[in-house]
């Protein structure tokens, strides 16, 4: 499970742009291009379901997602991950 605070940490760390609608929409931009997007519900605190879904949408494996949450991976490293996947 990914916690709501951890999702918000990812948003802050990766400088994701967000928009609030039925859910909180978040997307990653680089050089003016929208590269990946994800979302979470507006629930207050606690665990968010669909950790694997969020992870897939961010194009990360489990260890990379954990690294992001544990502050071992930052925006620079994330860019390299996306480049390696030919998404940038």
């Amino acid at each position, binding site marked *: *499970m990914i916690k709501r605070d951890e999702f918000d940490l990812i948003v802050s760390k990766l400088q994701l742009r967000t*928009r609030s*609608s*039925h*859910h909180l*929409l978040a*997307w990653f931009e*680089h050089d*003016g*291009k*929208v*590269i*990946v*997007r994800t*979302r979470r519900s507006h629930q207050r605190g606690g*665990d968010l*379901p*669909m950790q*694997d*879904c969020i992870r*897939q*949408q961010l*194009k990360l494996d489990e260890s990379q997602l954990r690294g992001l949450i544990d502050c071992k991976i930052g925006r620079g490293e994330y860019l390299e991950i996306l480049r390696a996947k*030919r*998404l*940038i």
Partner: protein
Amino acid sequence: MTTVDIIHDELRSEENVARGPITTIQGLVSESDLDMLVLGSLERILVGHLLDQEIRVYAPFTVLFKYDEGHVVAEAPAFNEFGFGDDHRDALHDLQRALAELYRELEEKQDRLGPDLLTTWQSLRRCFSRHS
């Protein structure tokens, strides 16, 4: 595994089906029948409506159901989008709302999408369109 078409009531009539792009129907059910279907081992359905007044489904899309940490997850693999809920109906509705949001988001940003989201946008356009 059972595959059925879930067609919103307004599209159910034979006339509308014959006029639309759907050519293979394995079973027409309305959304109100969904409760009956979920009593079985429903894993995959085709969905023909987004419950959105502005965006229509031109071609039905596949939705897969699975369980995750006590929730039902509805996945539309063609668009890398998900919905979740306490049951199949809630998960499907959440997914339908998410797809409508995704369509609007990517439509707004379509001129500056990266390769992966561009592919997603093209997939969305093959299945959905704005009501004229």
